[in-house]
């Protein structure tokens, strides 16, 4: 039962995270609007913001309508959710935490887990991409461990590490492999002609690596980090729901569900989404800066 719910948690988080691609989705939407003669193909900024507003407003209206019609205790109205969200910032829940404290707990875990993963996976990926022997040495172990979903490590992590390292460990695992593989792919994808060019200009091994391979692979490394951060954020929610202690947004929505406070559950979900967007959005910004340079 708990595992199934954890799976649902992942789905929710991923949908939230994907809204980061808002502009692309919106542009597809606009193409479909070609059928309407009053909507131009490249709408002005005002029209665009107007359409975004319309989109969100209709979503909320539809939700409200559904909530009223269905009248289920598990589907609160958007207004109730907003009220619960505001309340969560000012009142302690029955666990004794404000929502800020839950956010902080989750963030501390993701920062540590993701930081350690990046610190280890980037150098390892660079080394195994550049040195055949390192690749042959680490490759088999990586291929052995990679197919195990990070969530499958939760029971082990909880009993072996306990709070707070259990959750850090899960985030670490979740972020480690995307960063490692993306870094490795980045090194392998370096155009050999650039390496030849650098060699004819006098670059030898270490300089070649630092001045050509590293900058050429940087885009891929950051992409791996963004993906790792997103996966880490999903997994931390699941881990927190399954039994990690000491607060966290996952703990919050799971506990609120158990006492039937679904307005608070949805409020927690919205906050998870917002924080997720902020995290991957920040990485996405770095990524764009790098690919432009």
């Amino acid at each position: 039962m708990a595992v199934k719910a954890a799976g649902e948690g992942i789905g929710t988080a991923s949908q939230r995270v994907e809204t980061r691609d808002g502009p692309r989705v919106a542009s597809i939407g606009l193409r479909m609007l070609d059928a309407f003669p009053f909507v131009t193909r490249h709408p002005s900024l005002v029209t665009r913001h107007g359409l975004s507003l319309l989109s969100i407003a209709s979503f909320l209206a539809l939700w409200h309508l559904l909530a009223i019609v269905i009248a289920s205790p598990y589907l609160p109205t958007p207004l109730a959710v907003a009220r619960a969200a505001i309340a969560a910032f000012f009142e302690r829940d029955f666990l004794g935490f404000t929502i800020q404290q839950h956010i902080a707990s989750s963030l501390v875990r993701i920062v540590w887990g993701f930081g350690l993963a990046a610190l280890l996976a980037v150098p390892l990926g660079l080394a195994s991409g550049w040195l055949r022997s390192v690749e042959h040495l680490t490759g088999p172990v990586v291929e052995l461990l990679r197919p195990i979903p990070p969530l499958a490590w939760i029971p082990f992590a909880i009993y072996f590490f306990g709070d707070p390292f259990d959750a850090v460990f899960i985030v670490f695992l979740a972020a480690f492999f995307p960063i490692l593989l993306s870094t490795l792919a980045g090194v392998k994808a370096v155009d050999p002609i650039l390496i030849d060019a650098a060699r004819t200009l006098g670059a030898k091994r270490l300089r070649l690596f630092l001045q050509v391979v590293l900058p050429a692979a940087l885009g891929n490394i950051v992409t791996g980090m963004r993906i790792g951060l997103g996966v880490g954020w999903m997994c931390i929610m699941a881990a927190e729901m399954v039994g990690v202690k000491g607060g966290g947004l996952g703990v919050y929505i799971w506990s609120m569900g158990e006492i039937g406070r679904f307005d608070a559950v949805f409020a927690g979900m919205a906050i998870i989404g917002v924080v997720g967007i902020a995290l991957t959005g920040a990485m996405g910004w770095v990524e764009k800066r790098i690919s432009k340079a």
Partner: protein
Amino acid sequence: MLQVRRVIHSFDSMTVLSDLSFDVPAGKFVCIVGPNGCGKTTLLRLIAGLARPTRGEIVLNGKPIQEPGPERGFVFQEYALFPWRSVRKNIEFGLEMRGVAPLQRREISKRYIDLVGLRGFEDYAIRRLSGGMKQKVSIARALANEPIVILMDEPFAALDCQTRNVMQEELLNIWDASRERKTILFVTHNVEEAVFLADLVLVLSHRPGRLVEALPVNLPRPRDRISPELHRLRGHILDLLAAQMPREELLQESCEVVRD
């Protein structure tokens, strides 16, 4: 003096260059023409030291070539510029690798930026440049290392006809302007380009590449592209190249045209 001595080069079982020998006196502009896939790029890579010949040796001023060195510059057909570096930083790359101090790097890169006519574009990102400008950066980058031999692999192949003509003239000017005359090995499969530029045209055979003929072009510069002498030379080289084309391949190519 650059000496290519009995060079044989094979990839796996395929022989690309077979028993190739020629000498290039210092300061000459040499064009290398030959059918596609006859090993022209391979030859330049061997001279650059990016690969070692299977047999034979290449000697520059008495020293056998073992590895890449700053005295041999390379201009790649694909430009091979570092997209994360600005125009100036690309041109300074070789100087950085050789540990030249920043102020001096600036001074040298400025000189070559002026030489190739890229003043005002120093801080441009590579992706903002046109093909001709990219190739200028690539040439300036190779020149900044002050090589004595410049290897150029079809550098103007991707340019439109007008730009190519301008670049040819500018290349001759740059070559003329350098303090001591540099040796240039310029690969092209444009015969017109070869006779316009070269002191010496080396015609290679179909794969495996051998030297078919070394034609001196003893015409004063600037040359008239439509002069009868150049026209005659061009005809002669084209005949040599046509004779190189094996019969099957001629048939195959005409088939491809029909299929298109």
